[in-house]
């Protein structure tokens, strides 16, 4: 199976965007080789600004550039983009609806060996809680590229959550991708699995295994966490009567919480949230960590079976 890191796809997509549009400006905070904005920097040095190791200033400058008509893509690791710079994102970017796309890489546990200090498992929660913010968590390289151009076309602040390791490519070039519109990847009446990011391909694998047991699980790629495709969630709740959410993020405040909020308000059904259980990460190999924190195909299968038993 073909694999690509979403950060690699981001770097390539930025270069394409830069060729097409003169108003694209890219900012980074001394991590351009890791975030892959280095490719853009090389091609368009006059439209690349290295903020140095100063994330708050990077975000503040992004707001200023955006106010002068630039479409700003600002990148660093997710922990620093959403954590260190949070209040600048809120007050300088979101509050004034500045056209800034905060594109953060190295999100979640799959940062790996750098350890818990660098593994953001609360960034979706932070960004989702801010008014005016669009939050996108692509599952693979193809949808990352689509997201980058969709974010350019959309006026206003957005957060794009990208990862470090290579992940399976699940989309074709001509698959539909629309911000705010969930992608239903598999039909099924017994249960619904709603996933985002690196967990989408695992959800697909799990559904495959479940099908062998005669359990038909729907799989949805909820790439846009905000605005959430509420209609899709409610439809799934009606069709299957139970939902499993899966994310490489804390179970507090992320995809699972968003789904619960919608289901609670419109069509209450049992929801189980699979994610990081209100703990910090630690050093380890990316896959080892996903295993350790229970973010595996087996755990998805197990949780769907459990849900059905309680039905």
């Amino acid at each position, binding site marked *: 199976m073909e694999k690509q890191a979403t950060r690699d796809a981001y770097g390539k997509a930025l270069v394409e965007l830069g060729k097409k549009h003169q108003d694209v400006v890219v900012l*980074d905070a*001394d*991590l*351009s*080789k*890791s975030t892959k904005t*280095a490719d853009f920097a090389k091609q368009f040095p006059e439209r690349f600004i*290295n*903020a*140095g*190791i*100063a994330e*708050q*200033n990077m975000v503040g400058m992004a707001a200023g550039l955006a106010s002068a008509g630039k479409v700003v893509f600002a990148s660093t690791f997710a*922990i*620093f983009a959403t*954590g*260190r710079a949070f209040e600048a994102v809120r007050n300088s970017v979101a509050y004034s609806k500045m056209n800034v796309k905060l594109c953060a890489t190295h999100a979640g546990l799959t940062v*790996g*060996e*750098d*350890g*818990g*200090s*660098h593994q953001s498992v609360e960034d979706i929660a932070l960004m989702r809680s801010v008014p005016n913010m669009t939050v996108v968590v692509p599952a693979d390289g193809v949808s990352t590229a689509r997201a980058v151009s969709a974010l350019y076309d959309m006026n206003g602040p957005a957060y794009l959550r990208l990862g470090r390791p290579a992940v399976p490519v699940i989309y074709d070039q001509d698959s539909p991708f629309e911000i705010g519109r969930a992608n239903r990847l598999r039909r099924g009446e017994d249960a619904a699995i709603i996933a985002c990011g690196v967990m989408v391909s695992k959800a697909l694998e799990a559904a495959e295994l479940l099908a062998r047991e005669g359990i038909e699980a729907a799989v949805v790629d909820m790439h846009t966490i905000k605005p959430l495709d509420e209609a899709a969630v409610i439809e799934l709740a009606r069709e299957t009567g139970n939902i499993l959410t899966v994310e490489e993020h804390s179970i507090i405040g992320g995809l699972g919480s968003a789904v619960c909020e919608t289901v609670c308000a419109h069509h209450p059904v049992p929801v189980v949230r699979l994610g990081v259980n209100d703990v910090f990460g*630690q*050093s*380890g*190999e990316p896959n*080892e*960590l996903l295993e*350790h924190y229970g973010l595996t195909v087996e755990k998805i299968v197990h949780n769907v079976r459990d849900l059905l038993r309680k039905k």
Partner: protein
Amino acid sequence: MKQIDQQQVQRLKEQAREVRRQIIAMLGQAGSGHTGGSLGAADIVTALYFWEMNIDPQKPDWEDRDRFVLSKGHAAPLLYAVLAERGYFPSDRLQTLRKLGSPLQGHPDRSKLAGVEASTGSLGQGISWAVGMALAAKMDHKDYRVYTLLGDGELEEGMVWEAAMAAAHYRLDNLVAFIDFNGLQIDGPVEQVLSPLPIPAKFAAFGWEVLQIDGNDIRQILEALNCARLVKGKPTAIVARTIKGKGCSFIENKVEWHGVAPKGEEIARALAELNM
């Protein structure tokens, strides 16, 4: 004020060399991590733990101990090597660096390893911890001293200057900050990425006593530490010129060696050079 004799200087040089060997071995085993910034600052951290600081490895929680905060937390292998050599934990644990379940996290975690004073890794935050510790010493009328080590790239963080302002404002003469002035960060030389220069003038303007030394010269490090003890009413910044990757010729001064570990042949070559 401590007497500095040639024998001691020699002993510390040997100790720093051993620390560098441990760093290479540890990183080689881990397969990832920050080599350049760990090697470059080895003389400074060795001098602190083996000469300057009033500590007891058997009692890491002793309340009157001097404190060291590794503000440039990515140099964790250096801190771990020094702590192990100093007897805080058995050195065979160094082999677990960055492995699942290890107390030796990719960046220092004070809740996992005794001897680590502050959990760092997010640049700019360690110096604030150090200021807090120095404030606590003043509040409690204790005479322990607080040391911290920052990267020159790290100086680009605004938080560093917020801490610098606070340290001078509260007249923290029990605080010493080393600046590991190796001229490099991740995306290139600091002067090209976002210049933090001139460093000494900045700290002086913020109200600090400033000393400038060769940070790979043990004698100069000890002399600066002695000087800092004489400073009253303000914190001291020791701007230490270093060579990133010092001790391994093929790593020295190479920006690409910031965040990669030596592999195979490289490990053998680095160790051979350090054994010479």
